[in-house]
């Protein structure tokens, strides 16, 4: 019951990310997405969690729901942008793509042969949707910060895919992955600030000096 409602909320958050034009709301969405995905990982876990697993989950939650969104909000404030005015794909079309992606993910999750102990296919589907949301934001939005948010959303989806398929990596590897994501988004934030200083804007499609 709880997992079903978390899945429903996640679907709504993901659709919101497809449709919103405000970048600060996108940051809040990605934080909410991370929070819900961590909850989903807790709920779908079979048996009781060890204290290491609890520690790791709470660290993940702190990094993905608090630290990284705070970092993005700072970058957003110093870049001085509120909304994505002219995205490469319009918001109405984006929403339809989001709905199509939802349908596709549910279909694909039902189709794949699932290993024993895997969670509900809907959990797999919601992980896939989160990944697709991230990739879509990277491709269809022009602000560097929206693309960084897309990367984070994609990593969130991948993060929940593993427990959904009953894959449990060694803790040290999981920690390494989390560290990579954290440092990665941090460096992206730094580069965004440098781009802002150099160009006075952060529209990636207007950076087009390098081409053949």
């Amino acid at each position, binding site marked *: 019951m709880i997992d079903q409602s978390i899945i429903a909320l996640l679907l709504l958050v993901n659709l919101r990310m497809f449709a919103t034009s405000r970048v600060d709301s996108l940051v809040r969405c990605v934080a909410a997405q991370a929070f819900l995905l961590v909850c989903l990982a807790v709920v779908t876990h079979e048996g009781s969690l060890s204290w290491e697993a609890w520690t790791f989950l709470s660290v993940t939650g702190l990094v993905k729901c608090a630290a990284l969104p705070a970092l993005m909000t700072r970058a957003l404030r110093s870049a001085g942008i509120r909304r994505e005015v002219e995205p490469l794909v319009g918001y109405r079309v984006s929403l339809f793509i989001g709905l199509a992606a939802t349908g596709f993910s549910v279909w694909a999750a039902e189709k*794949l*042969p699932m*290993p*024993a*102990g895997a969670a509900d296919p809907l959990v797999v589907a919601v992980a896939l949707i989160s*990944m697709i949301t991230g*990739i879509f934001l*990277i491709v269809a939005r022009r602000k*560097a910060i929206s*693309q*960084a948010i897309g*990367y984070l959303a*994609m*990593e969130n989806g*991948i993060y929940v*895919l*593993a427990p959904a*398929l*009953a*894959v449990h*990596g*060694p803790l040290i*590897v*999981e920690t*390494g*992955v989390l*560290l*990579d994501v954290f*440092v*990665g988004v941090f*460096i*992206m934030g730094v*580069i965004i600030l*440098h*781009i802002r200083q*150099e*160009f006075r804007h952060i529209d*990636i499609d207007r*950076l*087009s*000096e*390098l081409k*053949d």
Partner: protein
Amino acid sequence: MMLRILFLAPFAAGLASLGISSPRVRRRLITIVSFFHLACTLIVWRTGFEPSAGRWIGLDALSMLFLLITSVLFASSSFATVAYLRGHELPVESRGRFSREAVFTCAMLFFLGTTTLAILSLHTGVFWMAIEATTLASAPLISYQRSSRSLEATWKYLLICSVGIAIALVGNTALAVSVAFDPATYGLPMTFRDLAERAVSLNPVWLKVAFALILVGYGTKMGLAPMHTWLPDAHSEAPSPVSALLSGALLNCAFLGILRTNAILVRAGIGGYSNGLLAAFGALSMLLAGWFVLRQADFKRLLAYSSIEHMGILAIAAGAGASFGGLLHALNHSLTKGALFLLAGTILGAYHTKSTRAVSGLIRISPATGLLWIAGFLAICGVPPFGTFVSEFSVMAVLGRGGRWWLLAAFLSALGIVFVGMWRIVIPMAFGRPSDPAVCVPRSRPIEAADVPPLALCCMVLLFGIWLPSPIARLIEHASAIAGGL
């Protein structure tokens, strides 16, 4: 123990470099650590190695070969790095805790550490972590100039490679799922070696999904077409010694992950699928690189596209089962491309332009650099007696013996196109008249210290073409047995 020193020493030195205030000491640290790394690598090679099953960090013949390549390249480009930093002194910034150069040094040493870790990791998860870490460590190296062009290149590099590597993470998950179907393999440690040994009882559907995702993911980092779009930008905008490392050391590392995963599929009996995909991506990369080489007007981008072509050769070699030729080619390509990027740095320093039209008369102005530039291009085109000829020829021989005529045709035509495209550019650069009014003529200089490392690298490639020393030949043979899934 020695292995831990190999990857922990650069990290420690990187952290220490942030605390050093004297630029001279800091620059010297890069050279010292690089040569220390090379010495450790040689010691490990001499004392012998064989990883025990279940180990996460270890050294087998395959990783030994790549470690050797990486270490030699870092050592030989370290002088150029120091010279670059000395030649591009930056004004001291008031804000920020660390100077930009200290961050560069730290990132450079972290880059060495993460690359070593990637090569040494035998665990799929640790490998992923290390490869993503190499991206993060090398991004500040590319953006060092903070010019508009270098920032654009860095953003593309960081985002495209991170997304690509994230796709490989999904591939890793799929690989872990493939273990969970058979009770015999349930809970198997996710090391490449354990997976290859039990490959027959893994689930083939998930194994195929995993390989496709890993090929696309690490293939992005390796520069296979059509995921290569970041590569020419990053390689042309980075400082030249960094380009040499990106092209010679980093691309190989990503290829290592693909090779090891391919070995699992070959052992599982579905090698036909993975080999077909590898050959297709390889052929596409070669042909596409050929097309862009033909219309190139920037010599660093020319070298970058040549790297894409050679990564295509490596992918085709892996797909055709020509492991020996492929690994020998990886060695030859890295050494040659390292030399060429270092020379490109020297030329850039003399002429202050990357445009091929503005550089001419190189051989008259600085004969040593000019001669090496020509020798390097002879080698990169696979002209005998250079080692690249031997390795390309042995890949082609395997293609011919296997009756893969279409692939061979694509291979040969791509080599031909690249040959024409390169010499159309290189001959005017080397022999043109330096008195052209459009050309800003630098003062002439017969030979300088910067020519020595590329000279050494070119000599090695030449040596490998004439006579392959038996320790290296044995190492490549053992490595190709692992890569071939034997």
